[in-house]
């Protein structure tokens, strides 16, 4: 495998609390994992104030998880994740074969609360998934249709908007597109998973800037028995390749949410997230 691209990603999350927080517990899924396409060379995490407990482990899906807690009063929490990722795989095939199927693939067929489908979603899926078509061909078609039929509308949905509403309104953001595609694929009985990651934001002059800039990105992956897992980005209508960096995956957003936290406080808070994907080579 040869080095195709090299990225430096800075992901900064800042919480400001109106009432000081006495204790907080957090789980981060922000360190990119290794895949057949990418190698994560380095991850540096800076947390302010200094956490009292930090633990690193791998979750059920093999994603890297960092748990930390802060046990002194604080009014602001800043989490800075810097990662260096080499893209080494070919641009079109995202081959990752699990070792035998002890459910590692089948579990991605079942409904989850975030990917619950109804008849409308199944019908929408059937247009792409027709007899005689290969899984990858159908998934590609589904990606194109979602890209064309749906209007990318930040602020219209929240992370808890059900996909049934997304398909009715034909609006959403990358998470909604990914969840919808996953619900479609599962409704016809095939495995699909949710991928969390980043996309390179600086494009050559004269080329339109890609959506998903300066934020976390999400797309979906479908399993083809012959080819393995294959990624599709319905937000940009493209097969993720040199411009996509994977953090990890799960059955839906809930499995791979970038940051989850519980605070002991009575007040409200403000949140600021900034993402910078810089290409080094």
């Amino acid at each position, binding site marked *: 495998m040869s080095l195709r691209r090299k990225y430096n990603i800075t992901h900064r999350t800042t919480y400001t609390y109106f009432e000081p927080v006495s204790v907080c*517990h957090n789980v981060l899924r922000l360190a990119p994992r290794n895949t057949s396409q990418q190698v994560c060379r380095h991850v540096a995490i800076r947390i302010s104030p200094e956490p009292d407990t930090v*633990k690193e482990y791998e979750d*059920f899906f093999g994603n890297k998880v960092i*748990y930390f807690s802060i046990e002194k009063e604080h009014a602001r929490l800043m989490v800075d994740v810097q990662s260096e990722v080499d893209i080494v795989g070919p641009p079109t095939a995202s081959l990752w074969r699990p070792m*035998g199927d*002890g459910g590692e693939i089948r579990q991605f067929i079942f409904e989850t609360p975030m990917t619950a489908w109804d008849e409308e979603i199944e019908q929408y899926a059937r247009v792409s998934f027709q007899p005689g078509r290969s899984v990858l061909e159908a998934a590609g078609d589904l990606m194109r249709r979602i890209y064309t039929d749906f209007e990318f509308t930040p602020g219209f949905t929240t992370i808890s908007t059900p996909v049934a509403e997304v398909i009715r309104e034909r609006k959403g953001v990358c998470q909604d597109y990914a969840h919808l595609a996953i619900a479609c694929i599962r409704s016809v009985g095939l495995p699909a998973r949710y991928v969390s990651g980043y996309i390179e934001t600086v494009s050559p002059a004269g080329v339109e800037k890609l959506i998903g800039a300066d934020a976390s990105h999400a797309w979906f992956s479908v399993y083809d028995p012959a080819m393995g897992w294959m990624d599709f980005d319905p937000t940009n209508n493209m097969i993720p390749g040199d411009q996509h960096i994977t953090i990890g995956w799960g059955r839906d957003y809930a499995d791979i949410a970038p940051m989850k936290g*519980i605070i002991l406080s009575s007040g409200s808070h403000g949140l600021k997230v900034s993402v910078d994907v810089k290409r080094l080579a």
Partner: protein
Amino acid sequence: MLSADEISGRDEDMMRLLKENGVTYNIYGDPAGLNRPWTLDIIPFLVSQEEWPVIEAGLLQRARLLDLILADIYGERQLIRHGILPVDVVYSHAGFLRPCSGIRLPGARHLVLYAADLARSKDGRIWVVNDRTQAPSGSGYALENRTAMTRVMPELFEGLQVRHLSPYFHALRNGLNDIAPHGRPNPRIVILTPGSSNETYFEHSYLSSYLGFTLVQGNDLIVKDNHVWLKTMGGLERVDVILRRMDDIYCDPLELKEDSQLGVPGLLQAVRSGNVSIANPIGSGILENPGLMPFLQPIARYFLSEDLLIPTIASWWCGQPKELDYVLAHLPSLGIKRIYRSPTGTSSVDAASLSARQLSDLRDRIKAHPSLWVGQEKVDIASSPALIKGKIESRRVLFRSFLVGTSHGYEAMAGGLCRTPSGDGNFIISNQTGGVSKDAWVLSPERVRILTVLKEAPEKPEPDYIDMLPSHAAENLFWVGRYTERVLGNARFLRTVMQFVAEGNKLITEPTRQTERSLLVALTRYSYTYPGFAGEGSEGKLGHPWAELRDVLLNGDRAGSLKFNFLQFHRAIHEVREHWSTDTWRVLRIMDEEFRQDIPLSHHGHLQMLRTLDNLITFIVAFIGLNRESISREQGWILLDVGRKIETSLLLITLLRTTLVARSGDAVEYHLQQSVLMSNESLVNYRYKYRMPITLGLVLDLMLFDPNNPRSLTYQVNRLKVYLKNLPKNPAVYWLTEYERLILEADTLLKLADKNELTLAGPADKEYRVLNDFLAKMYGLLSGIPDVISKTYFKHELAPKI
């Protein structure tokens, strides 16, 4: 032989006994059904000395098997990899919690607690109908049932040799000791309850006192440094083992159910780090899974090389094409179960009871997600005699058996909890839908020597010091104290105002009119029910005050109203409900009824409101009196009384500021001073002590400075000084704590006050300025105390300053 009359009489005795012991079962979504009394059929379910060893062996085998399955599912997953158990039975089950994968409990076993619902079919065979593996309930009720039966029917126990329940509880304590992290000796064990509104809360508090484990709620615990700590009055205490009575996903909002208010954030991390053990381990809900049934026999062969001793009911898991076809073809004759309870709807259906339309709906649901459904042959459950409303009838019975795992193996309770359906036609037996319980007697070949269930003395008795009181209980006791006085103070002032308005109507002079207005405005300010008589739109209300007065009395949705305060009071009481006696509950019930009345706005209605206030005042005074008898001094009393004294002080200051500070002419001021004395029950006291007409100076003397008047501010401050000194304090801290500083300052201010100066005012002054400043300063000092106490003892936010 007992006669029918005798049996009926004993039956009534037993019900009374259970009620007096406060045995209840809560029904969700039914406010009237909260604390529904537990019902027990006097006729026990008998298991013979020949049959029991067979049942017991079957249960022990099943517990061992389920333990191995649980360890495998969250560990190596051999059953799945070797094709013995289909992937979908596990992976499509909502109870398979991926964050729990790879976690191992110290000790020999994963499944510490297990309960099985057994049924006897008409041919006499025993079947397992349900497995309970998350937080099995019922063992405490079984014990309480047995206690009631031995008291009411002692002679039966002499004739028949009935096995004891206590070995099970002994094993339970051992089983929990066995899983202590790093083999710690004498581990600190707590029972984690979802709270007092949970259906089986009675049992949680019963087991807590029987086993000597502290009963805690999620917010009593905190995760720090990857360990779990119990917040107590004395500080943070490390917890080693948690016996949880909470479903899996509620245990940790950080990694499981995000919006769970019941759990402990970070708990799973502490478990993962091996610093705390939970029984049953989080994730064990995966075994409450009818989809496992058809595979239990092959699994038993695989793990144990044994056949199942208690066969499973014939079951067809619809995740396989042939089985799906069979279930769809025989739908009306089968019992249909979802492999896990859906968030909306029930988990099992008797397909025979469905209409054609419902059947076709069910068929569609099964076809949409076949792997979520199981069809089961219906067992024809045998009936047993039951005493229903004085008559012996025949009812079907489910028998719940309890097992506990220790390092020596599993131990089954020789007995259990039986339930019979409320009607005769029900296929599903559940306490949620009503039903009667029964004691289960396992007969013994030998004579059993001790007849009563003896309470085992805990091996390590918990000292009854205030240091050990969980912060959450402490905080609620403190609030019960505050709300007691808030209800009492508001009721008394409201009564004083209403009386004045009722009488003033008959005697309209300028001073009485003005006094009435001042009192009404003071009421709004005192009770904090703005706008009321003091804010926007007050002019009309001052002319016709009764509608507003009634609202301040009875509108439970209005913050500051008497009913609102009463509801807060009630809530706080429920949070610590094991502290109150039966008599206390009766008083509370009557108070509750007073607030349910619909009172018209007529002359008759006015009198009715006054009578209601009279009653409420009597009841709340009775409540205070009952507390003195029933609450242990060490544990709760101090906090409750600190709450009372602080509230009394703050209310008194507020009353004086809202009534006596403004200058409004001698006649009006006289009336207002009289009202202050009346609403503090101090008018008689005043007359007795001073034998003079009412003056501001003497009113202040009585209400602020008289150390012998139990309603005076000095009295409250003196009591607070004593109580606060008794709160746990680090012996190394020789300087004053923040609350000690506040109370000392308040005390000094009171002692140094110049009584004559307080009543000084120039002819043009609109208020007694010195008095107002004095009261404001006192209020500032005293109102700071609850905050400091809360931070120090309830929330543990203040870092020890050493």
